[in-house]
């Protein structure tokens, strides 16, 4: 086992060494760590002296936010069709090398710790950022970190365990679906019970679901909430009960995992190779994360000439995969709408501001990011600016249309005046332009260096920086106007001036990045 532990440590060392191999990447890494680390420390500092508020609704909502986010991540992983225990290299050396099954399983569990704690930190970040006015002190944050780490560790290992059972025995092929369905059934039952207790009043039923002890009946998720709520309430006995349940479930799972006797090496190695190649293709932009899974529809587009052919080709791909309007995008918007509807201070503006996060995620997942790194596009004999605009256009059109629909329908449900709806649509389009151009800029800056996490962090930073001028403009406008009041005219002026600013900034960024579509500016030196 010592050898495997040193292999794991060596791999982590190699990842860090790779980040610091070139001074540019090293500098970016340090800047990112300082910025994000600083943000985190600032959050901790500001909450260090704070006492935990006894506004229990905020406490429940903050914990639920963390749990909800975790549930989405966990369920996504649990239901993923493409699964493997390791990447190809690890699987080759581990399964072919002189290691016992228990050692291999132990190694697998060991490498899950890093993933689980990273996820946990991310959840913590989200919880602190959207803490619904709830101040959090250091011991509470530490306990959150431990609980969420254990929660992820349990589910990562449970997913692996269900996977090896499925590949060992055909009868267990759908076990992961059953586990997910089981969890959903429990959640629905608890929810229905909460509704029934509250005479089927949806809003009070939802609040009761979030706050009542019934939630603790949900395995693992409920126990995490039990621990955290008990800590806040200083109900130590309940807290110990929650910890005991969580630990016991993990120990039982680990025992089953380490002592698994089935024969799974052959399939596990094949799946590892398939997953590795799949991930490599995604990294190199040859395919995106969902294309492999969808049915391809027979359809047709009339191809434009020159750089326009890129646009036609992307529209054709969208039509073939029916990805212009995906069910998952509509679902996310609906979830945002429901959250804004039930939040204590929610409503139409909150929904629109939540859509800003959705815009960010949509661009991350779009084909545009892959296309920006595809050198077949660089070889097309046309002006680089035209190529860049045609690469961006399908994503721009798609997200603009979705934003229009989402804000339009939500505005009608909230019975808002047409002018206000238009203003929010225009504001979101402005952000969309900035986000799109910042994504282009981040690809240009990072060139062909492959570090998705760093790239995403940098992208977020560029997006924030790009949005600064329009925010500053709005502030200056407010400060310089004597007798300023938030009437319709003022809001209109701010919206449209901010949009103009965003358009100008976006085009400046795009123009300065245009040469990347010749390719040579993108391969890192």
């Amino acid at each position, binding site marked *: 086992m010592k050898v495997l532990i040193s292999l794991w440590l060596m791999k982590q060392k190699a990842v860090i060494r790779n980040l610091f191999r070139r001074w540019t990447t090293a500098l970016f890494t340090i800047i990112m760590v300082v910025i994000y680390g600083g943000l985190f420390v600032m959050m901790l500092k500001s909450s260090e002296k704070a006492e935990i508020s006894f506004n229990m609704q905020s406490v429940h909502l903050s914990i639920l936010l963390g749990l909800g986010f975790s549930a989405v991540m966990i369920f996504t992983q649990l239901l993923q069709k493409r699964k493997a225990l390791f990447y190809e290299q690890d699987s080759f050396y581990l399964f072919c090398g002189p290691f016992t099954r228990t050692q291999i399983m132990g190694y697998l569990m060991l490498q899950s710790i890093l993933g689980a704690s990273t996820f946990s930190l991310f959840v913590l970040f989200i919880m602190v950022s959207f803490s619904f006015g709830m101040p959090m002190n250091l011991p509470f944050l530490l306990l959150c970190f431990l609980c969420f780490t254990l929660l992820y560790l349990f589910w990562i290992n449970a997913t692996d365990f269900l996977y090896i059972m499925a590949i060992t025995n055909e009868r267990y092929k759908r076990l992961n679906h059953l586990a997910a369905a089981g969890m959903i059934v429990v959640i629905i039952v608890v929810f229905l019970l909460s509704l029934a207790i509250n005479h089927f009043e949806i809003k009070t039923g939802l609040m009761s679901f979030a706050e009542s002890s019934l939630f603790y009946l949900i395995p693992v998720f409920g126990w995490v909430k039990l621990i955290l709520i008990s800590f806040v309430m200083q109900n130590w006995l309940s807290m110990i009960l929650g910890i005991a349940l969580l630990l016991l479930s993990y120990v039982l799972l680990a025992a089953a995992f380490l002592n698994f006797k089935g024969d799974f090496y052959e399939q596990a190695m094949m799946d590892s190779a398939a997953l590795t190649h799949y991930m490599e293709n995604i990294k190199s932009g*040859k395919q995106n994360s969902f294309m492999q899974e969808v049915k391809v529809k027979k359809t047709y587009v009339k191809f434009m000439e020159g750089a326009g052919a890129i646009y036609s080709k992307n529209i054709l791909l969208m039509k073939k995969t029916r990805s212009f309007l995906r069910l998952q995008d509509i679902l996310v918007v609906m979830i945002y709408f429901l959250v804004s509807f039930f939040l204590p201070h929610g409503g139409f503006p909150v929904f629109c501001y939540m859509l800003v996060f959705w815009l960010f995620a949509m661009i991350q997942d779009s084909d545009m990011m892959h296309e920006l790194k595809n050198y077949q596009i660089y070889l*097309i004999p046309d002006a680089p600016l035209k190529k860049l605009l045609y690469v961006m256009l399908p994503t721009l059109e798609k997200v603009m249309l979705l934003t229009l629909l989402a804000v339009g329908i939500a505005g009608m449900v909230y019975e808002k005046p047409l002018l206000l709806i238009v203003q929010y649509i225009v504001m979101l389009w402005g952000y969309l332009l900035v986000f799109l151009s910042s994504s282009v800029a981040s690809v240009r800056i990072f060139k062909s260096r492959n570090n998705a996490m760093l790239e995403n962090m940098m992208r977020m930073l560029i997006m924030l920086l790009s949005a600064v001028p329009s925010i500053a403009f709005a502030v200056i406008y407010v400060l310089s106007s004597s007798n300023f009041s938030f009437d319709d005219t003022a809001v209109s002026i701010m919206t449209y001036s901010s949009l103009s600013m965003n358009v100008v900034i976006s085009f400046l960024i795009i123009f300065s990045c245009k040469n990347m579509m010749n390719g040579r500016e993108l391969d890192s*030196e």
Partner: protein
Amino acid sequence: MIEVNGLTKAYGAFTAVENIDLIAKPKEITILLGPNGAGKSTTIKSIVNLLKFKGTIRICGYDNRTIQAKRCFGYIPEAPILYDLLTIDEHVEFIGRAYRCADYKALADKYIALFHLEDKRNSIAKELSKGMRQKLSMLLALIISPRALLVDEPMVGLDPASIEETLRLFQDLKADGVSILISTHIIDVVEEIWDVAYIMDKGQIINRVKREDTQEETLKETFFASTEGDSDESAD
């Protein structure tokens, strides 16, 4: 014609190729030979303008950064770059329209028949075998009627019959006046078709050989004499 003058490409402190001069003339098949890590791929990628470099590169008389240069060369990479969900016909239409080619459909029909891909025209790329993907990649480089053709390890994934067909195709293109530059380390495959060979080692051209200047000596013998039997070479 492909003209490379004083090409130098460094990755940080490491110089991958240094001061390379190279010409691939029309009606000639020029081979770039060298052991692994000699700088062949860096040279090819610099020529197709995917890398920043020092020196000058002209394709068909145009600076390789210009649209005119892009319009006149075809590039067949070692690993085909294809859209998994597009069919062969859709790939053809995409490239044909993007390059504004007038007669791409007729040319595509010709090459589809030559590569025996007729019954796969409506198959999406991810359903094609490795060899078929390689053929599609070649087809896309050829439908633009290139006056210069750059080929990186062309025979990877092809069966023996397809290799023969591809070699014949290169000779036909050469007869039509196309400048062909092939980068490879499998010498046997190009032994019958080469006209000029540049032998690279450690980022430099160490020998330039013309077929008519070699007496009875094979390209393989010339190569090993130049590199003193570099063990990295897989001269199979």
